[in-house]
């Protein structure tokens, strides 16, 4: 037994079950993404993108989670988390871990990725590597494009240290003056591409923007001697503090967004080997302590690699794109989407099957003269959303349109405010969110008047109504017009719009009232079945597994003999494989080309398995502080399909890692197993399903034989 587990078991006596720290578990997830950057089997530009993802993940982590911990420490909060750590202890471990992580990021970049790029004739050049011709080109770029845009800001007694926005890249400069040192800051403009392609002869050569600036600083400070310069970058606390009781929530959020840019610094990245005086100057000005400083070999802010990974002309260096199957097999041959849904429930698996099916559903509803009303929740919406355009069109066509736009969707607040205003202007009834709760459920309801009365068509899913993210997040959506679901959907919207108290739902399970109890009762039932020698088993696929009470219940289930498989993409606070606690629990994580996002819950149910899908992860915030929706898949064909999805994921040997009892993750042991990339397999199945349906529908033509005289 590892020391780690021994310590956890000791803590077990205090907390009654072993529990991994959430933040540290998240770091482990980011490590798994970093492993994909290392993975030589992945095309090089995909590796580059994975590295970019680790950087943007880390940015957000600092802005929200680390910032939150710092707040707790500063306010003297000492309560231990379920893993037994105080905020100060967590912060200490995190700082240590993130320093190591960032070292590994840059090690990956310099030792693995850059050499690999070179093999494909993609080069990043420093000024000292360039010949005069190239230097001249860069300098000319500076003179013509950068110089007009740059605003160097001097810092002295009359000019205080400038306010630096969150995540901006800057260059600190130490200048020699008669009276001593002077300092200045030059912001690297984010509006200009971070890398400049300086040559494409015998390969492609790129120079970083900040290098061009640094090598032309003399043009910005003509009256001074430049003594030293260094890149640095600031990450600020970005969690909004919103007054939810304000009369106008939108105004309150707009105010908070402005404050976000002024959050306290939580991390400063500084170029390694930074001049000491410059370093001290920055520490003094930014008022940070040593633990918050990260010395980087460079370049700072690896998120630029995301764009780099998409440079034109290098398709062979990326994954073969997954072109969503259009239409999905379930909708093939139907011009009328309502007819298709009336016939039976339909399931679409994104991005393997096109999100267009959802867009077309809303568009059809907007134009159909028998549609009376459309109601929808929007959490994260794309910039030029066709869904929103369809809703606006529906309102213009006289439909009653009700939209809940969750203004508190973190980092999408401004975007959502824009949409909320547009929808209101078009005549939609817009709700900005519920006080004290975030509406995270994904539901679209269309009320239609038909010959035999009112019929309600629904789309329910695990993913946001975002046509952009639908191309690289895996999600599942179900279309249905079952009466019981329609009743529940209407009831849910009545609750969301504040017209009714929550009812007893017929089919749906809705947080914050009832979803936790539902999950508890389902697990309890498996425990009871196991004790009574009835078939039992649980398979759960979520993005995060954090809730202590449900984890404790899963441990109870394991002790009772229930076999449990957890497919958890990111944070997993449950520790599998501990004797006497979780030996019947397997935890796997799939990190691949696409971001796993769907949530699926299967319960063996004594031999008649049932499956649910929905919007909720197993975190306290989902179960207690959000409006979430989990619903059963009742159509037998669709049930089988979802069971099949779980089987495929559990047999993934390419992108799946299994968690050991010491909380580390290892790749699945491939020996004796068919290589299987679950994401590519889903894509193959989606294409195959469409072909099958097409073939089934092709009617043989009867060719009449006629007389030649006719």
């Amino acid at each position, binding site marked *: 037994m590892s020391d780690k587990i021994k310590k956890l078991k000791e803590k077990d006596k205090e907390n009654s079950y072993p529990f991994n720290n959430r933040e540290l578990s998240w770091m482990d997830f980011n490590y798994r993404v970093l492993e994909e950057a290392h993975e030589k089997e992945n095309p090089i530009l995909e590796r580059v993108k994975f590295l970019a993802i680790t950087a943007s993940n880390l940015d957000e982590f600092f802005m929200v989670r680390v910032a939150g911990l710092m707040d707790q420490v500063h306010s003297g909060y000492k309560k231990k988390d379920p893993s037994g750590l105080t905020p100060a202890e967590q912060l200490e471990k995190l700082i240590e871990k993130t320093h190591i992580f960032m070292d590994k990021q840059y090690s990956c970049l310099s030792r693995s990725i850059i050499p690999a790029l070179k093999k494909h004739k993609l080069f990043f050049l420093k000024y000292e590597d360039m010949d005069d011709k190239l230097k001249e080109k860069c300098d000319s770029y500076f003179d013509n494009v950068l110089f007009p845009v740059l605003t160097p800001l001097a810092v002295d007694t009359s000019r205080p240290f400038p306010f630096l926005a969150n995540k901006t890249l800057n260059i600190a400069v130490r200048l020699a003056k008669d009276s001593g040192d002077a300092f200045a800051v030059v912001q690297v403009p984010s509006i200009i591409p971070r890398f400049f392609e300086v040559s494409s002869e015998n390969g492609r050569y790129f120079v970083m923007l900040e290098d061009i600036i640094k090598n032309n600083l003399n043009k910005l400070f003509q009256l001074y001697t430049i003594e030293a310069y260094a890149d640095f970058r600031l990450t600020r606390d970005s969690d909004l503090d919103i007054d939810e009781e304000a009369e106008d929530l939108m105004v309150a959020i707009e105010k908070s967004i402005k404050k976000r840019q002024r959050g306290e610094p939580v991390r400063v990245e500084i170029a390694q080997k930074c001049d000491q005086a410059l370093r001290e100057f920055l520490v003094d000005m930014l008022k940070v302590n040593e633990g918050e400083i990260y010395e980087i070999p460079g370049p700072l802010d690896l998120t630029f690699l995301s764009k780099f990974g998409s440079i034109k002309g290098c398709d062979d260096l990326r994954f073969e794109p997954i072109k969503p199957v259009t239409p999905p097999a379930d909708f093939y041959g139907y011009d009328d989407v309502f007819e298709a849904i009336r016939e039976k429930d339909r399931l679409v698996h994104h991005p393997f099957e096109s999100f267009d099916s959802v867009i077309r559903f809303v568009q059809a509803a907007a134009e159909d003269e028998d549609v009376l009303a459309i109601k929808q929740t929007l959490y994260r919406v794309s910039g030029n959303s066709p869904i929103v355009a369809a809703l606006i069109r529906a309102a213009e066509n006289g439909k009653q349109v009700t939209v809940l736009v969750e203004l508190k969707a973190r980092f999408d607040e401004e975007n959502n405010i824009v949409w909320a205003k547009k929808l209101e202007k078009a005549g939609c009834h817009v709700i900005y969110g519920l006080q004290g709760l975030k509406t995270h459920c994904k539901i679209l309801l269309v009320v239609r008047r038909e010959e035999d009365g009112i019929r309600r068509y629904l789309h329910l899913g695990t993913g946001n109504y975002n046509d952009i993210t639908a191309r690289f997040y895996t999600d599942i959506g179900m279309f249905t017009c079952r009466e019981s679901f329609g009743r529940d959907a209407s009831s849910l919207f009545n609750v969301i719009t504040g017209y009714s*108290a929550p009812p007893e739902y017929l089919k749906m399970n809705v947080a914050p009232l009832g979803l936790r109890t539902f999950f508890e009762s389902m697990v309890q039932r498996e425990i009871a079945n196991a004790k009574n020698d009835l078939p039992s088993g649980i398979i759960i696929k979520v993005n995060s597994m954090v809730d202590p009470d449900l984890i404790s219940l899963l441990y109870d289930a394991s002790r009772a003999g229930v076999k449990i498989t957890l497919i958890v993409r990111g944070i997993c606070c449950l520790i599998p494989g501990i004797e006497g606690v979780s030996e019947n629990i397997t935890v796997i994580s799939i990190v691949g080309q696409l971001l796993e996002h769907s949530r699926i819950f299967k319960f063996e149910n004594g031999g008649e398995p049932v499956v649910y899908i929905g919007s909720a992860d197993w975190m306290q915030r989902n179960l207690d502080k959000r409006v979430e929706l989990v619903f059963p898949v009742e159509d037998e064909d669709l049930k089988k399909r979802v069971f099949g999805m779980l089987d495929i994921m559990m047999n993934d040997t390419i992108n799946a890692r299994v968690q050991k009892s010491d909380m580390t993750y290892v790749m699945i042991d491939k020996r004796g197993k068919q290589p299987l990339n679950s994401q590519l397999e889903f894509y193959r199945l989606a294409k195959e399903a469409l072909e099958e349906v097409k073939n089934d529908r092709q009617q043989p033509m009867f060719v009449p034989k006629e007389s030649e005289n006719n």
Partner: protein
Amino acid sequence: MNKRKNVKENKNIAAVITIGSESVNMKVASLSLGEIKLVDTLSYPLNLGHEVFVTKKISFESLKEISKVLDGFMRIMNEYGITQYKAVATSVFREATNREFVIDQLKIRNDINIEVFGLDRAKSLIFNEIIRRSGIDESSLANTLISYLGTGSIALSVYKKGIMEYTRNFSIGSMKLMEILDMDDGTLDEYYTALDEYIDSVLDKVVYENVNKGINNIVLSGSMVRTIAKQCGVESTNGNYRIKLEAIENFYNQLRKMPLNDMCKKFNITAADAELLYTASALYIHLLKLTKANEIVAVDTHISDALMVQLLLKSEKNSYEEHVAKNAASCARALAKHYGCDSKHYEAVCKYALAIFDKLKKLHGLNARRRLILELACILHESGSFINTHHKLLGTYDILKNTEFYGLTAEESLLIATTASTDEMHMIDITEPFENLSHKNSLVVTKLCTILCVANALDKSQNCKFDNISLKLKENELIVYAETDKNVHLEKWAFSECTTLFEDVFGIKLRLVVKTPFFK
């Protein structure tokens, strides 16, 4: 709100809004293949009962809240394309002294007409719906108590041999009881005992004689039906629950030992529901104790269900009116018996009056409801003698004005009272409207009184001298042909006293032709 363009009227969908003691509710239902299908239900919690049952008023804050909720409901109705709806308020508005102001404000703010249902009207709708849903044949109901237990009041009716013979209302609904007996005073046991005794005091005195003897069946509906049934372990069969006496007694005894918090935890209900649960269960037990029934048939229905049927199933509307007419008359007859009225006399008066009413339909323009009022007035026009033989008509007026007629409103009770309290000796003056009646109602009552006077005159001696009458309506006169071999001088005189009034009211002459058997 998006104004819908070109809304097509859809008669197959309707909404019913009810403003109750604990919530404002809306039900939306559609008619599909002849059956009513529930489409949507909304329940906005608003504890009006507390403030009204204690202060007798609806506060301005509550008014604003109701208005906001109704706004939302109208929006939802628009979403379903609903053009037909009914908005009603029950006991909580009945008891609010400022209800007219509140109704007026809701009309102005929301453009909604709220109808306040009298208890009898509400009761009759619910009872009709209970019978319809339970599938029971009304004419076969024997020794059955049917009851509605609301939050503000309870209503009872008793059927014997297929006929409703007794009906009563009591202002002791589950919430009202809670408000009357303040839960904070005294211990738990003291409170429960006080509650039991209070219910006994209200129910037993009036109910005992009429209800308990030989009642074997109880059919009821009302607040907490589903919760009580669930806690008694009873599953619904087509919306009906059969709950054994023993099960309710056990449940009730459990509740008696439980503080509120424990009730909430054990039954997974809110504190408000827990308070109602005890009072509702207490009422169930008391009803059972009044009878010999060993089970309750509980029907999960509400006034909104009854109104929905009226809106969507037009045929049921007629059926409901028939139900009211039949049972109002049967209860009136039971009441007449209680007041010592001569049944032969009033049946004769009734027969004559209704025959005249039917004959003169084109002249009086009154509907079936008015016919019922006439019928009830005929049945009970002698009831005043029970309390005052000297001023019989005044007695009749006072009794009938305060009588709860099954399925009729308080206004209609007043019409019955006014109609019944005239005779040929105390003619109405058609130039002067009746006290306490609107001009429109005065006209109605004038017509009905006139008919009643004529009918009464035909049996002035109360000896039912005429075997039959027949009527002939000519252009300028109504001829009443009556056949008898008895001396009808009194009847002829009384009849002649009515002719001037009759001519003034209906614009045609009135003539009596008496045939004797010798002159066939």
